[in-house]
């Protein structure tokens, strides 16, 4: 297997003077599974867009099937057999599986009429080739995420793909589904189809990759056989520093005080069962686990979005009923969602309005009219305290960078003075520098007495911020660790062990 399918040579690409890619060279061989790893902004998605013809490189060369290109168009790229599977899978929810599978092929044939028998025939053959059975007449919108992904992969193979690029393909899959996805990738490999697997989940990378390529700040910093790499080394190359967390100050949590939050036998049917734990003021508790483990669902139940069916929640010893988000807020519970753009921010509204949205009811005068001065006062205070970088609070939130948007979401919640703050994946999509300062901020908030729950699968992040960790699996708490007794290696191992136990 030495035949080269795809080569990029000395590719560079700048955006507004910032080098996104710097002299990158990379070779993909036939039937090879290559994992592209790197933090956000490291350049891996820029490279994918260059290979798929969305961006044209500033200089360098792309060679596919011995054809050399200075720049590619999306159509060139597809014709050469490069297929990208985006996270939205590019399917039509209202069309049948068969039609979704064949439509691209049909369009490029230029035919004016549709032959449904032929559609079914091609689609059935395509699905059979990767050993998948999904009813051809089902609407794509009625399929599960995993099935939709399979359709997208089949679509790529039907388009005679030689290289399939998968962008964070496991994001919305359960363990079982990830396992069968990996089986399919192995099957594709046997057929000589190469896969470029873009991911930041190192345990998955170690499992599937033939070769691992690591990007940092637009440069390729590592390219070697995956078998000789361990997670720690990969991390080192990704971040460019030894992840040493000894410098972090953990205040001693006073175990004598009454717990801030007690959860007893909390159950939400189909999501989690009999969850019991407690959280003291000033404590940071990490809740981790794999997809489908119920960790996000648990957080959303505590926040009243999907109230639990049974069990008890006590806050400062008092039993509370949390049936709605309003209930949660009345108990001074805050929730910072993972998806800033969709769940957290009002991008078209001003930064100030975003800060005060939680406390607007308090910013009124005796006539119950909003006082614009109070708004700018409160928002300026939080913009300063959280170091949100902006020239003017009146600018729309969409003018901020990713890290600053994340701070803005935090500011919005902190402004409402919560006792308990639930953070869902607080640093997803945030650059390394902002990440560290957000972690520091979390520690500081805890030191001031706030109780914090962090939902995350980012092991270093959990190690840096949490006093205690809960591991969830299939809706149940399976293990609990004290910070003093766990190391990053051990936690990684636990999570992976947890996974393989599940797959069998």
């Amino acid at each position: 297997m030495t035949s080269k399918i795809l080569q990029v040579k000395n590719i560079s690409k700048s955006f507004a003077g910032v080098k996104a890619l710097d002299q990158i060279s990379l070779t993909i061989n036939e039937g090879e599974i290559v994992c592209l790893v790197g933090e956000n902004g490291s350049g891996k998605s820029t490279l994918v867009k260059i290979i798929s013809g969305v961006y044209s490189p500033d200089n360098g060369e792309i060679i596919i099937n011995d054809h050399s290109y200075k720049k590619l168009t999306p159509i060139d790229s597809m014709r050469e057999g490069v297929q990208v599977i985006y996270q939205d899978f590019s399917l039509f929810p209202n069309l049948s599986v068969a039609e979704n599978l064949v439509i691209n092929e049909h369009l490029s044939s230029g035919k004016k009429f549709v032959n449904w028998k032929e559609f079914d025939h091609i689609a059935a053959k395509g699905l059979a080739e990767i050993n998948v059975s999904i009813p051809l007449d089902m609407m794509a919108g009625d399929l599960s995420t995993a099935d939709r992904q399979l359709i997208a992969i089949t679509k790529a193979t039907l388009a005679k793909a030689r290289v399939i690029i998968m962008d964070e393909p496991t994001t919305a899959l359960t363990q079982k589904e990830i396992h069968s996805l990996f089986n399919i990738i192995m099957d594709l490999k046997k057929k000589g189809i190469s896969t470029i697997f873009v991911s930041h989940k190192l345990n998955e990378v170690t499992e599937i990759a033939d070769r691992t390529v690591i990007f940092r700040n637009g440069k390729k910093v590592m390219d070697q056989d995956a078998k000789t790499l361990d997670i720690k080394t990969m991390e080192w190359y990704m971040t460019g520093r030894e992840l040493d967390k000894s410098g972090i100050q953990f205040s001693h949590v006073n175990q004598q005080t009454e717990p801030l939050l007690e959860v007893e036998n909390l159950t939400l049917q189909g999501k989690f069962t009999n969850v019991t734990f407690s959280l003291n003021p000033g404590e940071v508790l990490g809740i981790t686990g794999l997809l489908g483990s119920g960790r996000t669902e648990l957080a959303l139940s505590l926040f009243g979005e999907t109230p639990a069916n049974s069990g008890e929640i006590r806050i400062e010893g008092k039993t509370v009923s949390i049936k709605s988000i309003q209930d949660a807020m009345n108990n001074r519970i805050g929730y910072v969602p993972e998806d800033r753009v969709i769940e957290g921010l009002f991008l078209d509204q001003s930064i100030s309005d975003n800060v005060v949205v939680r406390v607007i009811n308090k910013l009124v005068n005796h006539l119950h009219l909003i006082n614009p001065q109070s708004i700018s006062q409160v928002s300026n205070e939080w913009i300063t305290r959280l170091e949100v970088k902006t020239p003017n609070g009146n600018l729309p939130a969409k003018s901020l960078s990713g890290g600053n948007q994340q701070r803005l979401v935090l500011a919005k919640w902190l402004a409402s003075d919560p006792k308990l703050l639930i953070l869902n994946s607080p640093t997803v999509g945030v650059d390394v520098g902002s990440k560290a300062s957000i972690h520091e901020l979390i520690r500081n908030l805890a030191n001031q007495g706030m109780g914090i729950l962090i939902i995350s699968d980012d092991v270093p992040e959990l190690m840096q911020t949490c006093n205690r960790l809960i591991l969830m699996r299939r809706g149940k708490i399976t293990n609990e660790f004290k910070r003093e007794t766990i190391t990053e290696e051990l936690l990684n191992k636990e999570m992976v062990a947890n996974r393989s136990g599940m797959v069998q």
Partner: protein
Amino acid sequence: MKNSNVGYKSTIDKQTLLLLGIFTILMVFFGFVEDSFLTNRSISSMAIQLPEMGILSLAMMITVMIGGINLSVNATANLSAVLAGLFVLQVVPQLATDGNGGALIVTIILVALLVGVLTGVFNGFLVAYLNVPPILATLASMTVFTGIGVGLTKGQTVTGFPDALGMISSQSVFGIPLPFFVFVGVSIVTHVLLKYTTFGFKTRMLGTNPTAAKFSGINNKSITMKVYVMSSMLASIAGVLIMSRTMSASNAYGTATYVTLTILIGVLAGVISGKGSVINVFITVLILQVISTGFHMLLAGVKGSAFFKDFVWGILLIAIFIINYFSRSRNKE
């Protein structure tokens, strides 16, 4: 302007300037070509016609601001007038005969507003609690509201109101008819509600991003309900004005054009989900009225002259689409 960030710092946005520009050009144009245009009579005739349309446009605007639409505004106005009219004529006829104008008008307004609340709850329930797309919900409710009115009146116009009813429309202060002051008052109240109350703040947030609004603890259902109730109540006020001007109540007033016009005014005024300006709507209503009156005077005696303005409105709207398109693509660069 849909994508402009430029107007954020200044208090006057680009759309306001554009509209003011159009308004000025039109005033100058008609002032020059038509001597009688800037006379008291002409201005007062304009001021008596535009409040109904203006208030209906505000009723439409607030629903568009939360990503909705209210096709039933005109039906609500008419039903309010019909029910208020039937109430004073048939349930409390002594009010109509006593000659107590004040009590009559107050009763009519109260009944109309009550109808506004009920119709608003009907719309709000469909949209907020049954998740029916607003365009369908209010299409259905429009038929229901008109249906109730037609059923009760057997399709006839309700007439026979005492002269006192006409007071609202016939009174003027400083030569300007009372309805215009009603419009100004309603506009100011709406402006304050949207700009300086938590209700207005939440309305904007809900319109910008309903999911984030939910996660920020805004009760989306309740805000949606309130918006539709407010929309209907505004429509009811317009209904009372129509009733007073025509001295009658009917389900047929404005059915062909009013709803279309209110949406058109909203589009011209740059109302979108999460963003809407009472001032822009106000100026737009003035513009439409100037075009209407201006061409009416200019084309006096020409057959079908009353319809030329419809033609111009359509052209104007298309012109705004094209201007917006180019300013959008310039902003992108």
